[in-house]
């Protein structure tokens, strides 16, 4: 983990509402693992102090890429940063995905929102190809199809309005596939919490292992502030674990989706 002042080599609207941010960040690139994130200090909003977390999308040589959407103050300011400017970036952070075991676990990736960006590195470094199930509200939300196909993965798209791929929720074609064959498969999911819960339920129903990357608001990103805690099952009952440190990736069987009374 390092805190680097890195050069922005690219920052542009890339697909749909998503921007591509490319950073020359050699130390972070060298250590980055699938499912990890970076914590970026955004200039130009001096009264909004906290860093913002973004999943590591691609690593190419010294370059780390991020895909992000403008949702609020920080991302709006990030979109105004120009190539050539520098950003303070902390990373790589968090406990990421474990690579599928070749021959034993065929990976089924499930993505919504920015989740597909978080899964790319896993797909790229996986010893075996599998299927990416990607869902969104409409066509413009669906990212990186070609990037995953270029890796040799099968991509099945769902949109809620039917404007692209199957019409419905992403868990529907996933259910069909698991019903066809669950044995030897493993799920990896990243997206909105509702989607993750549905994936966890499917994993339990079909008895498959699943890793979910949780989307928790963060503050420090390194495990000291205790903002990002999620309840996790333990031998003795349950405890809070930190989405920025023990996570964001967790074994779906251990995630408690509500805090026990």
């Amino acid at each position, binding site marked *: 983990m390092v805190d680097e002042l890195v050069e922005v080599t690219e920052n542009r609207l890339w697909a749909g509402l998503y921007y591509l941010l490319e950073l020359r960040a050699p130390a972070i690139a060298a250590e980055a693992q699938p499912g990890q994130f970076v914590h970026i200090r955004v200039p130009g909003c001096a009264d909004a*102090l906290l860093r913002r977390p973004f999943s590591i999308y691609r690593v190419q040589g010294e370059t780390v890429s991020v895909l992000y959407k403008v949702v609020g103050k920080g991302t709006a300011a990030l979109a105004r940063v120009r190539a050539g400017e520098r950003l303070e970036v902390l990373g790589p952070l968090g406990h990421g995905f474990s690579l599928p075991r070749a021959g034993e676990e065929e990976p089924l990736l499930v993505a919504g929102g920015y989740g597909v960006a978080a899964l790319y590195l896993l797909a790229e470094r996986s010893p075996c190809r599998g299927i990416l199930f990607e869902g969104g509200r409409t066509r413009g939300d669906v990212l990186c199809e070609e990037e995953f196909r270029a890796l040799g993965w099968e991509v099945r798209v769902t949109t809620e309005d039917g404007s692209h791929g199957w019409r419905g929720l992403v868990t529907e074609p996933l259910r069909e596939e698991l019903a066809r064959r669950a044995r030897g498969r493993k799920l990896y999911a990243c997206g909105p919490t509702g989607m993750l819960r549905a994936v966890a339920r499917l994993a339990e129903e079909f008895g498959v292992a699943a890793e979910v990357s949780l989307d928790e608001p963060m503050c420090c990103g390194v495990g000291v502030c205790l903002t990002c805690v999620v309840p996790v099952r333990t031998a003795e009952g349950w405890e809070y674990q930190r989405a920025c440190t023990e996570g964001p990736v967790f074994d779906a069987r251990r995630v408690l989706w509500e805090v026990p009374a």
Partner: protein
Amino acid sequence: MNLAVQIGGLRLQNPVTVASGTFGYGVEYARLLDLNRLGAVTVKGICLRPVRGNPKPRTAEVTSGLLNAIGLQGPGVDGFIRHYWPFLRQLRVPTIINIWGTTIEEYAEVARRFDELEGVGALELNVSCPNIKEGGAQFGTDCRLLGRVVAACRRATRLPLITKLSPNVTSIVPYARVAEQEGSDALSIMNSYPALAIDIETRRPRLGNGIGGLTGPCIKPIAVKLVYDAACAVRIPIIGMGGIQSAADAVEFLLAGATAVAVGTANFYAPRTALEVIEGLQAYMKRHGIGDVRELIGRVEMPGTGRPAEAGAPEGAGGSD
């Protein structure tokens, strides 16, 4: 050039520590900073038993600050000693253990347990907590209760005892004096300021707990004044904190009367701040031909009164409009 200061019996190689709750238990930031360069490491508050903490959201970003209601999540004394103390023990700089309790007896018990622990630098009492026995009155906003908590901890330990005062009081002077009278070796000023942020779309507070504590650069001018007020009233050293982001901020606190400073919220977005404060302090001293950092303590020249040491109790009147 001397940067070393004394906090009670504790010698710090420089006057910069970190604020409890913003630096975990040291090990987390060890990958980013050489902790042995700090004056001391102050850890997240510990009480007798493990505490899970408040419902989320636990923090909210506000204008130039942070609102938090973490709920003092922690491993308890045993968990701290087992999981975190081995790492802290091998540091070459002292550890200040921040402690709290729900009753006076609990505070004293925690103090006693750490008194028995070899190698602790100092204890910092977080009194911004409700007294469960007395209907929830806060220790830090009731002079009588504060005195009893400090006295009980004083009896329980020979370690340097730092009492961390609450800022939301009409005057910090009686609290500083009571803390000093009952045996504190030093004071910490200030803890977070009670505050509230409401999400206007949901009509709910932005924190799961409702009320939270305000910290960060937005509160610095309030903290600097409280340090000044306390420094005029007591002789024991003060660790000043509240929105420090730079060496310039730290110098304000020293000039106001602090002997040491702590970097808090800034750790979250600029983890190297504490080290930059140390380096910047040295640069400032060099530029001004100051050989010993202690020459700065309390050296603000207030109108009409000169130094705080000579000022006595500052005028009760706020000078503002």
